[in-house]
């Protein structure tokens, strides 16, 4: 395998693995927090069991997220030393804040997990909230650093060197806000639907109160997020249209610059002939989505030299997949809001539970697709418009072997974590099944 491809694949595998654990680590603390809060308010012990069970899940995900994150902080330099040598001082500041946020999260989680009897119950609840807040902040800091790669700012680039570095300007670059809200909402949506889906599957088998409560809490978070997400996505896309027109063109396989540009849904991009086959085309809608005007001109890929195009098909398919899933989840969320007033009744409907079960992995598939959209869509640049990814590759040969090794480790870890969680769920259920 080509060294460059191997390095990119290793980065993709490492980030793709970490992002799942990071999302859950950001969001699930809020679920356990709400469950404990409900317990304090209602005194219903089911909520306490739920909070404790979810806290265990958080601990497992947090630990795996922490080690995979530690690995990433090294991999950046092991695979892309030239990039880090130049970019480290510019975009590194959010990482130092992230260190603090991560540490606070770890401490608060330690208090939450082991402090059930030692802390005052309201203080205990508060530590749960701190886990959630610092988790979300960690995510935002990391995303802000990534956003800098898309919208580099806070420095002058003269003869291959950075001068006049302003870390604050770099951190609050033009892409940070749109990426931060899009990612945070995505984390809530993906984790919410995943948790609700798992409990829906379990509820179909055993009608336990704990699963019903779990579905309600997780789905409430997920639904709010899923309704907000298209709005957030729209803002993000408009931002990309402004900052990285080539990337936007790749999302849509939009080859020719035109006014009243059509929104392309699905289809197979044919890069050689610069067209998209078998797609649904909505004239004017791409202009509207990118610039808020049906007649606006949208730059096509033809404006850019071909060697500066991102890989069009991957970006296109990932974008379509992300948007498609986003729309589907928004529909489920709309149904949830419509059905809330006779909620209890709905939980007895098989089709509804099945729908939730189907949605279980979808949010995370969309998160991965979105990550591919933003990362592959930035290629061939590692710092957009400044440094090419291939120019920052490590001189060390044999990266394919480290890629294989890391991949095998993460695949094994994925299986073990899944197995572990299924055992945890069985343990949780067995308590109720024996009693009932």
């Amino acid at each position, binding site marked *: 395998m080509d060294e460059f491809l191997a390095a990119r694949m290793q980065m993709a595998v490492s980030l793709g693995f970490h992002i799942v654990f990071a999302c859950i680590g950001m969001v699930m603390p809020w679920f356990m927090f709400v469950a404990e809060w409900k317990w304090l308010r209602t005194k219903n012990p089911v909520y306490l069991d739920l909070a404790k069970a979810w806290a265990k899940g958080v601990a497992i995900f947090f630990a795996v997220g922490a080690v995979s994150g530690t690995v990433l902080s090294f991999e950046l330099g092991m695979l892309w030393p030239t990039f*880090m040598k130049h970019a480290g*001082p510019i975009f590194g500041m959010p990482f*130092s804040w992230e260190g603090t946020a991560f540490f606070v999260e770890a*401490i608060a989680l330690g208090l939450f997990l082991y402090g059930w009897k030692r802390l005052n119950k309201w203080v205990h609840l508060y530590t749960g909230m701190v886990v959630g807040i610092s988790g979300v902040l960690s995510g935002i800091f990391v995303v802000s650093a990534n956003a800098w790669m898309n919208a580099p700012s806070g420095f002058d680039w003269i003869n291959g060197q950075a001068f006049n570095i302003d870390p604050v300007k770099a951190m609050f670059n033009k892409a940070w806000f749109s990426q931060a809200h899009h990612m945070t909402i995505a984390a809530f949506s993906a984790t919410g639907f995943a948790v609700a889906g798992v409990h829906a599957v379990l509820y179909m088998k055993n009608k336990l109160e704990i699963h019903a409560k779990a579905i309600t809490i997780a789905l409430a978070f997920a639904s709010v997020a899923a309704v907000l997400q298209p709005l957030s996505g729209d803002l993000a896309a408009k931002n990309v249209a402004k900052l990285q027109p080539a990337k936007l063109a790749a999302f849509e396989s939009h080859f020719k610059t035109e006014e009243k540009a059509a929104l392309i849904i699905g289809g197979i991009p044919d890069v050689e002939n610069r067209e998209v086959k078998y797609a649904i085309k909505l004239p004017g809608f791409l202009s509207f989505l990118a610039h808020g005007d049906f007649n606006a001109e949208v730059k096509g890929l033809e404006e850019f030299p071909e060697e500066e195009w991102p890989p069009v098909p991957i970006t296109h398919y990932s974008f379509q997949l992300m948007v498609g899933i986003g729309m589907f989840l928004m529909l489920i969320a709309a149904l949830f809001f419509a059905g809330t007033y006779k909620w209890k009744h709905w939980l007895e409907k098989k089709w509804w539970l099945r729908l939730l079960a189907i949605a279980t992995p979808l949010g995370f598939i969309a998160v991965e697709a979105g990550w591919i959209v933003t990362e592959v869509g930035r290629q061939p640049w590692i710092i957009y418009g400044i440094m090419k990814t291939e120019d920052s590759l490590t001189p060390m040969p044999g990266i394919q072997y480290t890629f294989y090794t890391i991949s095998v480790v993460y695949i094994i870890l994925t299986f073990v974590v899944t197995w572990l969680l299924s055992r945890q769920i069985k343990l949780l259920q067995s308590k109720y099944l024996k009693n009932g």
Partner: protein
Amino acid sequence: MAEANLIILVICLLLYVLLGGADFGGGILELLSRGKASKIVSRAIAPVWEANHVWLILVVVILFVGFPSVYSTVLTALHIPVLLVLLGIIARGSAFTFRHYDIDEKTPKAIYSAIFRYSSVFTTFFLGVTVGGLILGEISMDYQLGFYTVYIHPWLNWFSVSMGLFMVLLFAFLAGIFTVSEIDDKDYIIYFTRMTKRLLISLVVMGAIVFATAKVAGHPLLKDFINSPISVACIVIATLALPAFWYFLNKNKGNWLRLTAGLQTTLIVTGWFAIQFPVLVKTNSGHDITIQAAKAPEQVQLFLLIALVVGVLIIFPAMGFLYKTFKFSEEPES
């Protein structure tokens, strides 16, 4: 400003050795002790577990923000041992968590334990090898030279290997101190006191071997130590503290014990840093990377320092609360 950040980096490194070291050493100590004794080790170390990775992450972040060429050079030349450390960190971190949270069944627990213990040794060893590679200064920046010269030789040599073994003993020793001062059972206090003493003796012997292998490798480690007044002071104080340490160990004075062991480790790290400074990375071409050459601009250092100081002001009270909640009360519950 860069100097201030470098000092914080060294402090983070020290905290990683002291706190993370006790964690890593916990796995090694479990391997050395059998049966119920190993359970006692894991119970003594578990409650402060989650937080310790952060010291390493902070070291890495300070490096790539404040001294980016150090970060890039080291991770290129020492790519392989660092990768091995990372694989070890993944294995032991997840195995420890899985063991802690999985259902109480014999077979999986035994597997998790085995992975945790052996990967603790593995990780610590390669951490030491990496540090050895840094000290020895065989790092080559001419990437045209052969694979062996550039990517293997800087860390695969007798000196680095003996540094790896030294690190294994050091971390096991730190975990021994931690365990002794944590437990109440008389028999096990005696058991772990004896083990800690043995580890200390091996550590001193291994330290001598480290100096000997440095000499063989042509590295003037001993001479450097003697020529730096700070390093000499460190060695003298560390040696003078040994009898006191022995006394506290025999009398089982938990807090004093931790304090002296912490002091001695601090002295080792400070002594090393004193002979290295102002060089951050030694290379075999004679063009060493100094703090002057490596440091990022002042503006960057300033914001890094602000972030670190604010971070410390947030983290330390929180950590204090964590320790206060768990360390001064009896059984940890899960």
